């Protein structure tokens, strides 16, 4: 039994919206990072769903790429958060604003 592609899209939409909500409302950098991950994975779901729907592997390959990238991104992101914590004793993203101007 196959599930219609529209359900996958709905799922990814929901996931993306949750991630977006997190990005817009949270101030904790860790929560931020997790929200970004959610949005990224929402995109992955879309890629896989449509790959399945069209019957070729391009989307899946891209999803793999995106996951690898996401891993790298998390590594960098966590590194930034560590530095952030070291410098500001906090992981609140609204605190470090010195680089804006």
């Amino acid at each position: 039994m196959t599930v219609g592609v529209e359900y996958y899209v709905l799922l990814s939409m929901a996931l993306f919206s949750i991630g977006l909500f997190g990005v817009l409302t949270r101030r904790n950098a860790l929560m931020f990072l997790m929200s970004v991950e959610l949005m990224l994975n929402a995109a992955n779901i879309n890629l896989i769903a449509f790959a399945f729907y069209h019957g070729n592997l391009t989307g899946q390959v891209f999803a793999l790429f995106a996951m690898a990238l996401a891993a790298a991104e998390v590594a960098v992101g966590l590194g930034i958060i560590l530095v952030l914590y070291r410098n500001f004793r906090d992981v609140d993203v609204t605190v470090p604003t010195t680089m804006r101007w």
Partner: protein
Amino acid sequence: MEGAFSYAPAIAAFPLAAFVVALTFGKWMPRKGAIAGIAATAGSLLFSLWMLAAVASGEVYHETLYEWTAGEAAGEVGDGIEFTFGILIDPLSALMLVIVSLVAFLVHIFSLGYMNAEGETGLPRYYAGLGLFTFSMLAFVYADNLLMAFMFFELVGLCSYLLIGFWFRTRSAPSAAKKAFLVTRFGDYFFLIGVVAIAATFGTVAFAGDDSFVAAAETAIADGDTLFGFDAQTWVTITGLLVLGGVLGKSAQFPFHTWLPDAMEGPTTVSALIHAATMVAAGVYLVARMFGYYALSPTALAIIAFVGGFTALFAATMGVVKDDIKQVLAYSTISQYGYMMLGLGVGGYVAGVFHLMNHAFFKALLFLGAGAVIILMHHEQDMWKMGGLKEKAPVTYYTFLAGALALAGIIPFSGFWSKDEILYDALIVGLNEPVIMAAYAMGLVAVFFTGFYTFRMVFLTFHGEPRSEAAEDPHPVGWAVKVPLLTLGVLALVAGVANLAPVAKILGVDIVFLEHWLDGEYGAVEGLTYSAYGELLAYETGVIGSEQLTILVAAGLSLLLAFSGAGLAWKLYNVPEPVAHKERLGSARRTIENNYYQDEYQVWLARGFTLPLSRAADRFDQTVIDGSVNGISTASLFGSSWVKRLQTGIVTNYAALIVAGFIALLVFLGVYGGWF
């Protein structure tokens, strides 16, 4: 004499070599470069004499040696134009070469006694300057085209700057040097326009030959051409007057005469070489060189004559009240060059050149004599502190006296003959031309003043009782001083023999050698002769009674005035204890002592007008122009200081903005794309 001319370039090359040698090795040479200079100028003198002999044997030389550049330009002569360096040796330039190299040679020798003996520092620089000056002047003299003449004319100006400013550690010498260069540069500005205009009009700058600008101008006037929107005659006058600007500057004619008295800040030898005999002569020589061009324009000639006559009188009156021996000589130089201009302006080509030659000898003599006096007086130049030098320095006295007699125009010294000829030429033309008559009258009155200030100088310096310790115990002078003085003294006495025109006309004897010389009886370039110029001249001449009577009247008048001037000086100053008589001049005294405020208004033009104008321009530049540039940047910065507040630095806000923007875009595309 065939091969003589192939050595002509050496005449200028010798002093150039001396310049290089003195500048690079002078420090290590015995006498600090003087020997190189003396050898070089001696070589130049010998070669110049050789040229003179060659011309006397009927040869002339007109050769292009080096092409500076060439190109296309529209002009009256041909399509292209060539700017070249060439040599033109004809009677005029051969004569001038000898004068210049002789004076330069003597000045070099005199310098041994004047500069070396006094333990000056910087002597290599001095001799290098003299060498460069001699080179420039000689190259100017035998230049065969106007551009080359201009180039060396300017180099002469550079040399005068370097030499006047020789004692650069003082405040006054650099200032005088600057003034000399600036004032002559102002004249050269007009000269350069003239050169450019002549080149652009006629497509040639050559002095001589069928493709010279003189010949082209003659053709253009004959054809009634229109040049640059003027008829040919007017245009020739305009360009001629532009070139005259340079002449007035270099020859220190009114109103560009102010630099010359200041230039006495230089060593006296330099004054002798540059400001008496040669550099100042460059201006007058240039008029003689391109006399054919001026002969085409009666207006230009009349202006030359009038300026000359006016300057002769104007400068002579200022010379009357000066206390510094060199200042008196400076004003006399200006005045004498005024005579030459007067002579040339009335068409007296021979008379002008004759006076140029005589003046070179007797003025060099007077300056060197003044140099000797300055040595005697332990570097005192105030005549009121001198006196009584007659017995203590007979050689200096008698040679100086010879020069003074020539300057004052006392028969039979050389100055009389040439000055008389100029005044005679002016008189016969003036009988028909009121303007020339006025110029003549001024020249005539100046004779009186010349006689007066010359002998005032002689009496104050040499006669009476010594008026200072230095005058009582003069410093001795050596052979290096005496030899040049004696040579020039003899020349000042006898040089007049070259052209005894009045005697010739009255007695009917053919003793006008210079006239024949300049008329090309021996050898000449076609078109550059006295009679060729005579044909171009548009002057009518008149006589008083008969020719002989006119000659006698002219000569008698000028002699009478010269004697009365000298006599007045004798009465006032040839006393054991002379006193100043300036007070008798009354209210005129202040004006004359201040040189008619000529310096003041020119300094005001520079300092009081141009400098504030430039400061105002600078303020305008800093506030308005740069202000608007900075204003734009200030406005941008101010604008951005508001816009940048959008950039909060909080990533959440950015994300919100992105989302809002994305939604707005979706709505926009939806509405206009027809989704709804």
